[in-house]
């Protein structure tokens, strides 16, 4: 989902300046600053408990910042809450639908609450429910929907009042990979039609790849902010992994001959090279020690996270995500 509109620097859609939020003794968000440009898909990537949901809740006016400032669509999130609310659509990680009502009734409630004029409402309702393929099920109660259908309905509902920014908090959490792909297809369609800015939080690395730019967030702070491609190239290029019978000795040879800094885990040695495929043939021919296996792969965002924080994104789930 790379966007051609990324160069639009007129005025940022979201402007965040040293935003902080503490819950008692715990600092959930510790002074983050960033900008989101109009029309881009901006991702917050980090493990559970990193402060993603708290940040999104402050931007959506649901949680008051302890200090710092944030503007959404030019409106202050503390002093111009109603204008902020009108500018944003929201899809939370947990469903916020009334399951006792039908799909259509949920949509109508939203339209009334946001004061969408009647002519717009009926046309928009039809268009959006059609797009997420729920038009035929509009008279069914939400209770009877699958997880994927509910998420689609929430996305449609979040867009009903023509928001400029769509916030997606872990939008595909708990969905199977196929449904996840479908949700992103819908989002791609919607984005093309509506000139939407999307703000997304996720701890799925492949989902973060959908973003134009990513802020890597860890323990309430932004560790890095760039395009996925550049974040990955900062890791130091492709990752070459070799399996040998004597890891430390192989590592010494790599260090002495090529000047790389290899990491050794038992008898597996790995190191980063700028262009892996071109490097490999010469390396295999010239290496003096026996190897059982050689592999090369592009760095993933998992490597980015490991590189930036020294930890794997998956190994440190903590509580507090839903705050």
């Amino acid at each position, binding site marked *: 989902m790379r966007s051609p509109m990324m160069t639009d620097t007129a005025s940022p859609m979201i402007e965040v300046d040293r935003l902080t939020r503490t819950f008692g003794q715990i600092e959930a968000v510790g002074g983050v600053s960033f900008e989101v440009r109009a029309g881009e898909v901006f991702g917050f990537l980090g493990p559970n408990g990193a402060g993603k949901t708290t940040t999104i809740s402050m931007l959506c006016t*649901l949680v008051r910042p302890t200090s710092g400032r944030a503007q959404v669509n030019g409106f202050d999130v503390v002093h111009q809450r*109603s204008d902020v609310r009108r500018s944003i659509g929201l899809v*939370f990680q947990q*469903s916020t*639908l*009334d399951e006792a009502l039908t799909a259509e009734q949920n949509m109508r*409630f*939203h339209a009334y*609450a946001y004061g969408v004029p009647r002519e717009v409402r009926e046309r928009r309702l039809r268009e959006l429910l059609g797009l997420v393929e729920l038009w035929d099920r509009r008279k069914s109660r939400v209770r009877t929907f699958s997880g994927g259908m509910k998420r689609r309905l929430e996305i449609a509902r979040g867009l009903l009042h023509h928001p400029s920014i769509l916030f997606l908090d872990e939008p595909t959490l708990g969905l199977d990979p196929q449904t996840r792909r479908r949700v992103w297809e819908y989002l791609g369609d919607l984005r093309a039609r509506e000139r939407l800015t999307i703000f997304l939080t996720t701890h799925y690395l492949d989902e973060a790849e959908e973003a134009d730019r990513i802020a890597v967030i860890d323990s309430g702070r932004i560790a890095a902010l760039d395009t996925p491609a550049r974040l990955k190239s900062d890791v130091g290029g492709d990752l070459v992994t070799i399996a040998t019978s004597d890891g430390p000795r192989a590592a010494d040879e790599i260090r002495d001959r090529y000047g790389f800094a290899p990491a050794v885990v038992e008898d597996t040695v790995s190191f980063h090279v700028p262009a892996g495929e071109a490097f490999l043939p010469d390396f295999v021919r010239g290496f003096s020690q026996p190897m059982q296996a050689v592999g090369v792969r592009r760095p993933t965002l998992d490597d980015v996270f490991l590189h930036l924080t020294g930890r794997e994104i998956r190994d440190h789930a903590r509580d507090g995500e839903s705050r």
Partner: protein
Amino acid sequence: MTELVRGLWVVAYRDILGFLSDRFRIVASLTFPLLFLAIFGAGFSNVIGRMAGGVDIVQFMYPGIIAQAVLTTSLFSGVSIVTDREVGFLREVLVAPISRTGIVLGKAAGAAMVALVQVAVLLVVAPVVGVPLSIGTMLQLVPMVALLSLVLSGLGILIGSFARSQQGFQLFMQMLVFPMVFLAGVFFPVDSVPLWMEVLSKANPVTYGVDAIRQIFLGTAPATAGLGVTVFDHTMSLAEEVAIVGGLGVVLMSAAVWAFRRQE
């Protein structure tokens, strides 16, 4: 201002829609008061028979049962805040461009509408139990029921804003509803019960709501003949009771708005 009005009507609309699409709730909320009336009426009528002011026990209890239905419906309206929080729908409401005060008033208005529907159905049995119905009665009854319902739903919302689980809310409410109903003169005149009960009943503001509804149905004659509420030798008039209920409403509704707004 528009955000207050929009919040009020959209929340009320959804609560009424929720009530209408829940058949089980409709049936239960209508049969429960009738069951009460049938059982208590039949149980007491041979023992007590005719009371002061030419009223029999069923006629005496009928307005009380109506008040009790209003009370239960209104107090439990606060549960929707708790369930909405549990299922997540509350977030959809809180993030909409509507005022929090409007949301609280909308919840109360929704409860009042549901209570009025219930009362309308209960009115059908009035001729059966020998309670006269006139246009005048209806004209007074509608605003009185609405007022009582708004006041008590204020209390329900106040508690709902603090409760963190449905079970907690239900338990707390049971604890509150039973004394409130049994010490409100629904089943017996508060002037002719043991002193401790009389004191508690007269301290219970619901008593005045019940008696107001009773005076609307039966007129002032039974009240002055000992079936009303006498405080310091003064028999409460309908207007005085409306003032008490209204005053309580201002207090409870303000507290409910405060409690609801303070949550994040």
